[in-house]
């Protein structure tokens, strides 16, 4: 209930502006506590734990243990899948964004593209895995179609949706839309007049892209590719749903470790987490730096 005449005696921060600095931080205290409990502490615990042994003493032993063949192989395969799906998603996403924004298509295409790109990343996870199994699994529709119509036995030729390339194919389903979502605004920033100025000075499409568009866009392109890389690196559900524990991904390995200490070494688990965090944080950092570069240079 609001009063018409307000008492100013109460130390209400909203009515004592001269005292705001000392009390105002209370307003964000709940959030800070929440962030501390559920963001900062868990991460710190893992990071610190990576440098500790079972008794709590400082050690670099865990980091050294990261370089055993099985773990290195795990990181390597995860990096490969993430890189390939990121670059693939970036290239296809770029072409798709180009087609939608500057490709001379009817005006209704772009909103449809943007809406779909906004929805598709939410499919990622178990439902997406099911969808690809239904499509290209052993009893999938396309697999059957290829055999019934073309006599082509997909699985006899070594393809398997539950392996390396199958996972990449599934990852593209959310990598491409993510690229489109980020790149469409960037392409919008390419002013029509720049293309026209390039044309009237005698340049063709190649000149424009080579000397103007790509130089302007490349920080966005590279940065977003890194974003896609980090995105794929941290993905669990899609991989689990599609391949189970079939592919030795870092996230699957961590999943098993959390479920039941399969490594028989908690601190090693922390070290693996640290490795993951370093990779995703680095990727995102470079993305942010590149984005800031673009903003600074081309106002």
């Amino acid at each position: 209930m609001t009063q018409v005449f307000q008492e100013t005696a109460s130390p209400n921060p909203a009515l004592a502006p001269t005292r705001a600095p000392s009390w105002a931080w209370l307003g964000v205290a709940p959030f800070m506590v929440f962030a501390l409990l559920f963001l900062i502490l868990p991460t710190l615990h893992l990071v610190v734990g990576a440098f500790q042994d079972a008794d709590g003493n400082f050690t670099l032993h865990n980091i050294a243990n990261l370089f055993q063949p099985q773990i290195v192989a795990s990181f390597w395969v995860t990096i490969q899948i993430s890189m390939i799906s990121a670059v693939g998603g970036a290239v296809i996403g770029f072409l798709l964004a180009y087609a939608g924004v500057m490709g001379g298509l009817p005006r209704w295409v772009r909103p449809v593209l943007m809406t779909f790109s906004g929805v598709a990343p939410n499919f990622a996870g178990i439902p997406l895995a099911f969808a690809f199994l239904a499509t290209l699994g052993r009893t999938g529709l396309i697999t059957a179609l290829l055999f019934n119509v073309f006599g082509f036995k997909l699985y006899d030729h070594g393809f398997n949706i539950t392996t390396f390339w199958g996972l990449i194919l599934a990852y593209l389903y959310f990598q491409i839309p993510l690229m489109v979502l980020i790149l469409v605004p960037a392409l919008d920033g390419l002013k029509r007049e720049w293309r026209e100025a390039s044309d009237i000075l005698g340049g063709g499409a190649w000149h424009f892209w080579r000397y103007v568009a790509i130089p302007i866009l490349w920080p966005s392109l590279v940065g977003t590719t890194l974003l896609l890389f980090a995105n794929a690196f941290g993905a669990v559900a899609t991989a689990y749903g599609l391949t189970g524990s079939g592919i030795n991904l870092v996230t699957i390995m961590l999943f098993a470790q959390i479920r039941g200490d399969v490594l028989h070494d908690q601190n090693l688990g922390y070290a693996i987490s640290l490795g993951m965090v370093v990779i995703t944080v680095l990727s995102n950092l470079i993305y942010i730096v590149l984005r800031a570069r673009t903003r600074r240079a081309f106002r």
Partner: protein
Amino acid sequence: MAFLELENLQKTFGANNVVQGFDLSVAQGEFVSFLGPSGCGKTTTLRMVAGFEHPDAGCIRIGGKDVTGLRANQRHIGMVFQSYALFPNMTVAENVAYGLKIARRPAAEIRQRVEEMLALIKLPAMAQRYPHQLSGGQQQRVALARALSVNPQVLLLDEPLSALDAKIRISLREEIRAVQRKLGITTIYVTHDQEEALSISDRIVVMNEGRIDQVGTPFEIYNRPRTRFVASFVGTLNILQGQVLDAAGGRILIDGQEVQVTRGQSDLASGKIQAFALRPEAVTLGDGGVGRNRLRGSIDQVSFLGSVVRIRVKLKDNAILLDTFNNPGVAPPEFGREVDVNFGTEDLLVLDGAGRD
């Protein structure tokens, strides 16, 4: 011999007839302005000359050669855009060199040409700067240098000064004209600012709703407007409704007072009510004496504009705006005073297309 010929150009967007029957011949080295309000088709026509729009009908010839079918990058034309359109990732020097780089000129030639161009626009020190480090006026000068660096046969400018401050606009338009004169390049300049067009053009094309209303020198356009639109768009104009008493003798009745028309009497129709145009600078306060037209009314508005005092004198249904120079020794006349205004008989112009019963 016309260097640039535009013949019967037409362009329709959907249901809009944006450009209709546009004919123009431009001589080599001439500076022609397309003047008109937004949507009159001036920019569309310019873009057809550039090659960004394809005309639905008509043809464009440069130096006798038909370029209508050529793409923009094949026409060897220079263009300056309203938003400058400098490439943000390149320095000033790289921007200016762009056209030459595409033409694969040797590096030494490019370097020399860029120096020449930067000297021409008086910005030699800015070669290594980036566009975002320059002011709007400087960017536009660089854009001009870039357009001219490839030695185009025609220069097109699309409202190049609209994005700039008033003071810069005035100095820059003079600079553009000076550069153009020095190089002798055929130029088309699109603008909605009539003062701009009047001050720098050899000829002005006044456009309205896709059509050309009048083509002429600034002097002709201003002093002998052929249509009501041209008269009102270019400069301030008084439009008076008067009844024609005697077409042959040029006697007109305006709000019960008789005046004389000595120019354009052939456009008069006895008995009809027609519109007449009168420039404010042709009107003076007071009784002008024998041989001049005189009207009596009362002052209903006085605007002190600094160097000029603009006075509005109300008759019955009509009002006349007149400008007098500010005189520090004489106060502007008061509101409501009954005054006479006078003007020459040749100053009252007949506007076509306004006759009604």
